[in-house]
């Protein structure tokens, strides 16, 4: 059986870079990384190089020294050199296995910790000093819909989404609290999940009576029963996002609200 050992060696050496990169770019188990293939490969190879340098530098700490010449000889096409390298590998399998197992484990765990620290200390916020390094510039929906750009003191409590969707040829306005959102593989939004959803026909805006006050326009909304309401983003004509904050009411805020009286509406 012919076995492309040099290709396997290259693969094993580069694999940790790709593992590291994919773990660093993930948040809540959904990939936010839709980079072009060339960038994925170049970053993966770069991370692999960095990890190998760090691991080789750490070998003396564990009382060992990495013999890089064995790896180079494994890539050789000279059968004699290749054979000697294989013998060297065979004589120290536990050490080499330990190197790669710890490297793979590290390339999985280290970026998860880094990602957690970035999120915890909000290093990827738009005004962070580190945003040039840690920000997902290719994932604007993530920052728009998770509130990751707000500082902790001013973070809203929820997002209200209002979408116009054509239902049987008629445009409807759907409004609700955004619960979840999903991406397609190309990074565009796939669907939105709303809760506490209401809806009304958009053409009721055109009625002169409805136009007279915001309250009258809102009154046309009817609640949709159910816990979650899913809207396919492909069917959304326009989407409006509002960040809402819930505060404990102070005594001053509890004074009665005097709503503007619409005379025409009152007479109607």
């Amino acid at each position, binding site marked *: 059986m012919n076995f492309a050992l040099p290709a396997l060696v290259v693969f094993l050496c580069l694999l940790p870079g790709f593992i590291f990169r994919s773990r660093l770019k993930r*948040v*809540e188990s*959904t990939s936010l990384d839709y980079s072009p293939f060339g960038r994925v490969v170049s970053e993966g190879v770069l991370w692999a190089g960095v990890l190998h340098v760090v691991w080789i530098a750490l070998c003396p700490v564990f009382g060992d020294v990495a013999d890089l010449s064995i790896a180079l000889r494994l890539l050789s096409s000279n059968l004699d050199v290749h054979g000697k390298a294989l013998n060297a590998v065979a004589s120290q399998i536990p050490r080499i296995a330990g190197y790669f197992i710890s490297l793979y484990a590290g390339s999985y765990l280290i970026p998860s910790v880094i990602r957690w620290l970035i999120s915890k200390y909000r290093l990827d*916020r*738009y*005004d962070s000093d580190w945003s040039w390094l840690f920000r997902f510039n290719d994932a604007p929906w*993530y*920052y728009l*819909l*998770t*509130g990751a*750009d*707000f*500082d902790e003191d*001013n*973070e*809203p*409590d*929820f*997002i209200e989404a209002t979408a116009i969707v054509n239902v049987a040829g008629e445009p409807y306005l759907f409004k609700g*609290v*955004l*619960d*979840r*959102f*999903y*991406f397609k593989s190309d990074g565009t939004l796939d669907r939105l999940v709303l*809760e*506490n959803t*209401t809806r009304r026909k958009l053409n009721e805006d055109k009625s002169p009576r409805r136009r007279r006050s*915001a*309250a009258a326009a*809102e*009154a046309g*909304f009817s*609640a949709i029963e159910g816990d979650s309401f899913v809207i396919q983003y492909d069917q959304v004509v326009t989407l409006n996002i*509002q*960040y*809402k*904050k*819930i*505060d*404990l*009411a102070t005594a001053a*805020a*509890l004074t009665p*609200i*005097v*709503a*503007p009286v619409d005379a025409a509406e009152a007479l109607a």
Partner: protein
Amino acid sequence: MKALKSPLAKQLLSNPRTREQLRQVPSSTGETRVVELRNGQTQHYVVRVVPKAA
């Protein structure tokens, strides 16, 4: 992926009464008032729109 939702928002949305109040028409100041009854205590909240961070 989970959208932004604080524990307080989850708490108000899980209660049918406060959930209904969150759907109310905002006042002229753009605020919605929510009254929560929990363990015999009445809690008043004001829900308002805040500007985008960036």
